[in-house]
C-alpha cells in the first residue's frame, strides 16, 4: 500500500482531448509524478474518461485539473465531481476503488463507508510519520466523528514535530530560521502531547533567547526585542513554566515598554498636524517594535499576558493596572465602527476600515473581562458571522470565541462549525506552509488547552 505524502496535491493541464477522451498530462510533470508513484498514476493518466456527456463537458483543452490525491487509494475517478464548486477547477478524486461518480450518486452511503477507512488510514499514516490527504469520505467523517478529530490532531502534531529545527525545540515560520512566534505556538500546541522532551528542549531554547531587558526578538538573529514576541513568550511561560524568573522580567519589560504615543510630543503631533487617522493618542498599548505606535495585535497579546499573570503578583500592581486600563481603552478606541478590529486604526481619511478576523479574535480574547460592554458584544457578533476560508484566521477565531461560551448561547455551535471548516480547509496544503498555522490549528482543535484565555472578571 502506498501512502501519498502531504505534498500530494498536483495540478495537471489537459493539453488535448483525444478521440478516446484521454487525459494527457504535460510530460515533465507526469514524469516527475510517475517517478514517485509509478503504480498509482499511470492507470490514472491513461485511463479513458469514457464517452459520457459529463466528460465531454468538463474536460476542455487547456483546462487545469486539480488532482487531489486521496488517502491510500489510487485516483481512478471519472471527472464527475462538481467542478464548479471549486472555482472552476475540476477535482478528480479517488480512493478505495470507488469511482467518484459512484460517490456522487450514492454520496452518503459511500462516504460513510470511506470514513471508517479514512480514520484507519490516518492512524496508519501517523504511525509511519507520514501525512495523508483524507478522502472526501474522511472529511465527512471528520465532521461526524470525534475520533477523526483526534486523528487530525495527531497528524498535525507529527507535522509540527517534523518541522522543528535540526537541533530540536525551535521552529521557524516557513523556513528553518528560528523565530519566537512559531516556537512559542509550537511549544504550546505540543505541551500536552507525548513530545515532552521536545517541549523541554524548546523551553530551554526559548529561555536562552531572552534578551537582557527581558524581551524576546521576533527572530533569533534580530538584535532588539519586540513586544509581540515578548507577550507571546510570556504567555507560554505562564503555562509551561509559571514560576520561572524570566517570566517576571518579561512582564516587567512589557510594562516598561511604551509606544511613541506615551511621549507628549508625539501626542501633540497627532493632535495638531497628523490628524487623518482618527484615534485618541492618550490611549495607548504596545507596538510591533520599540519606537513605533500602538497596534491592535501586539496590544491585545500583551494584555492577555499581563491579565493572565495578575494573580501571581510578579510585577507592581499599580503599574500593572495602569497599563491594563490604558491598553483596554486603546483597544476600545480603535474598534472599527461596525465592530471588530483592523490592524491598528478604525478610520483613516474619513473612511471606516474593515475589521480583520485575526486582529478581532486576539482583541476579543484580551477583552474577555469586558464582555458585557456593547463594543465587545458587537465585535463578537461580527466575528461569529465573519466568513473565513483560511486556517490561520479560523484558528484564532475558534480560540477567541471559546472564551465566550458562557456569554452568548450560539457560540458553541459556531465553534463546532468553525472546527469543521478548519478541518476541511487544512486539507489544502498551501494553508499549512507556515508552522504557526499548524500550531494554531492544533490549539484550536483541542479542548484541553487555551493559552490565550483570560479569566472572566
Amino acid at each position: 500500500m502506498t501512502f501519498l505524502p502531504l505534498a500530494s496535491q498536483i495540478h495537471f493541464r489537459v493539453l488535448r482531448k483525444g478521440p478516446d477522451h484521454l487525459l494527457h498530462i504535460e510530460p515533465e510533470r507526469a514524469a516527475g509524478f510517475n517517478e514517485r508513484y509509478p503504480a498509482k498514476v499511470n492507470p490514472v493518466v491513461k485511463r479513458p474518461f469514457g464517452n459520457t456527456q459529463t466528460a465531454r463537458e468538463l474536460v476542455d483543452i487547456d483546462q487545469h485539473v486539480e488532482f487531489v490525491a486521496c488517502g491510500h487509494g489510487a485516483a481512478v475517478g471519472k471527472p464527475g465531481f462538481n467542478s464548479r464548486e471549486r472555482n472552476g477547477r475540476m477535482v478528480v478524486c479517488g480512493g478505495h476503488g470507488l469511482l467518484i461518480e459512484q460517490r456522487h450518486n450514492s454520496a452518503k452511503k459511500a462516504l460513510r463507508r470511506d470514513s471508517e477507512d479514512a480514520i484507519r488510514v490516518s492512524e496508519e499514516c501517523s504511525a509511519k510519520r507520514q501525512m495523508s490527504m483524507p478522502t472526501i469520505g474522511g472529511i465527512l467523517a471528520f465532521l461526524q466523528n470525534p475520533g477523526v478529530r483526534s486523528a487530525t490532531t495527531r497528524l498535525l502534531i507529527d507535522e509540527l514535530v517534523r518541522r522543528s529545527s535540526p537541533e530540536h525545540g525551535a521552529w521557524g515560520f516557513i523556513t528553518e530560521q528560528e523565530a519566537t512566534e512559531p516556537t512559542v505556538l509550537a511549544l504550546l500546541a505540543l505541551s500536552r502531547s507525548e513530545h515532552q522532551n521536545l517541549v523541554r528542549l524548546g523551553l530551554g531554547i526559548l529561555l536562552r533567547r531572552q534578551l537582557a531587558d527581558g524581551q524576546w526578538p521576533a527572530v533569533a538573529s534580530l538584535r532588539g526585542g519586540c513586544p509581540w514576541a515578548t507577550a507571546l513568550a510570556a504567555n507560554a511561560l505562564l503555562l509551561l513554566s509559571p514560576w520561572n524568573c524570566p517570566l517576571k522580567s518579561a512582564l516587567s519589560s512589557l510594562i516598561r515598554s511604551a509606544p511613541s504615543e506615551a511621549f507628549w510630543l508625539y501626542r501633540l503631533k497627532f493632535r495638531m498636524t497628523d490628524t487623518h487617522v482618527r484615534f485618541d493618542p492618550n490611549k495607548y498599548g504596545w507596538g510591533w517594535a520599540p519606537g513605533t505606535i500602538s497596534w491592535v495585535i501586539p496590544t491585545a497579546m500583551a494584555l492577555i499576558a499581563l491579565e493572565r499573570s495578575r494573580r501571581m503578583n510578579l510585577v507592581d500592581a499599580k503599574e500593572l493596572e495602569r497599563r491594563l486600563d490604558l491598553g483596554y481603552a486603546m483597544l476600545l478606541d480603535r474598534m472599527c465602527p461596525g465592530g471588530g478590529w483592523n490592524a491598528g486604526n478604525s478610520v483613516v481619511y474619513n473612511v471606516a476600515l474593515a475589521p480583520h478576523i485575526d486582529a478581532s479574535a486576539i482583541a476579543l480574547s484580551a477583552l474577555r473581562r469586558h464582555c458585557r460592554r456593547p463594543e465587545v458584544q458587537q465585535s463578537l457578533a461580527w466575528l461569529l458571522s465573519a466568513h473565513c476560508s483560511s486556517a490561520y484566521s479560523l484558528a484564532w477565531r475558534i480560540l477567541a470565541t471559546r472564551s465566550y461560551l458562557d456569554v452568548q448561547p450560539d457560540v458553541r455551535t459556531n465553534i463546532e462549525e468553525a472546527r469543521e471548516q478548519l478541518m476541511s480547509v487544512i486539507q489544502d496544503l498551501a494553508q499549512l506552509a507556515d508552522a504557526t498555522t499548524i500550531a494554531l490549528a492544533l490549539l484550536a482543535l483541542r479542548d484541553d488547552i487555551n493559552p490565550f484565555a483570560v479569566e472572566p472578571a
Partner: protein
Amino acid sequence: MMKDVTRRVFGASLLAGTGAMAVRRLRTLGVLHDRRKPISHVAILYAESYAAPLERILTDGLRLFHLNLGGKTVLLKPNLVEHIPDTEVNTNPLLVGAAADVFLELGAREVIVAEGPGHERDTYLVLSETGFESQLRLHQLRFVDLNRDELVRVPLKTRFMGLDSLWLPRTVLKADFIVSMPKVKTHHWAGVTLSLKNMFGIMPGVAYGWPKNVLHWKGIDRSILDINAAVPVHFVIADGIIAMEGNGPLHGSARTLGRIVLSDDPVAADFTCARLMGLNSWRVPHLAQAAEFLGNGATERIQQLGESLPRSVRPFAVLPEFAHLVPEATRTPLELQQRHPR
C-alpha cells in the same frame, strides 16, 4: 483657500526640490553610487481590460527589451495589500499569471511570486480573497510569503533612514531577476505608489511589523530610497489597466487607464506612470530623489518603445495634500532645470 493651496504647493515643491538637490550633492561627492543608465527604456502597452490577451500583449512588449533570462530565477513582486470588495487595490492576478507564463517562455528557469502584504497578517487569506491563490494554482507558481521568509542582514550603502542595515528576505536576495509589478495608484502618504514604493512590500513583517511600521516611522520616502538602493529592481510591469485615483492606495476610485507600462528602469517606469496619471513626478520627493542616482526621470534619458505618451491627460484626482502634484501648479526652479538635459 487658493492662498493655502499655493503655499502648500510651494512648500511641498521646495521640499521635493531641496531633497533632490541634497541627493545630487551626495552623488557628486561620491557618497551615492550613480546607478543611472545612459538611456532607459519604457514601453507603454495598450490593454483595454483584464479580459484582453494579456499573454500576447506582454510577449510582444517584452520582446522589445531583448531580455536574457536563460536559466534565471525570476521573482515577480506584485502589489498585494488586502482585499476590499469591488475595489481594484491589488495588481491584478491575471496580469501576474500572464507575466509568469511569458517569462517562462522567454527562458526563465523558475518564476516565483513573492509578497509581504502590509496590513493583513493572514497572507493566505489575502491570496485567497484576491484571486491570487487560484492564479498561482493555475500557473503552478510558487509563492513566498516575504513577511515570514528567512531574514538576511544586508548592510546599507545609503543612509536615508539613518539605519546601517536592513533585514531582507533571502528569496528576494537569491532571485536573479526582480520584477516589480505595481498597481498604478495614488497614495495618501507618498503621493503615488508605483514600482519603487511597491518594493516596500518586500520588507519582512516579522522584522518591521505590520504595516511595516518601523519603516513608516523612519519616513516613507527615505525608506523607499534605501530599499531600492539595497535591492535593485531589474524590470517593471506596472498594472495601469484599471488604476486608482483619489484616496489611494486602498479607498480611492477606479480609473481606467487601459495601459501596462514596461521598463528596464524603475525610476523611468514611475516617471512615465506619473506622466500617464497627469501628475508632476518631480514633485514626488522619492521620485525626484531617486532620479538623481537610482534611475532616469528626465524624458531625454528615457527611450519610449511601443505606444507614445498621450498628448493630453486628465490628471488623476488627488487628496488636497497632494494638490501640488497636479501640473497647473507653479513649477520650481529645479523642475525648470530638470527639463534640460544634464
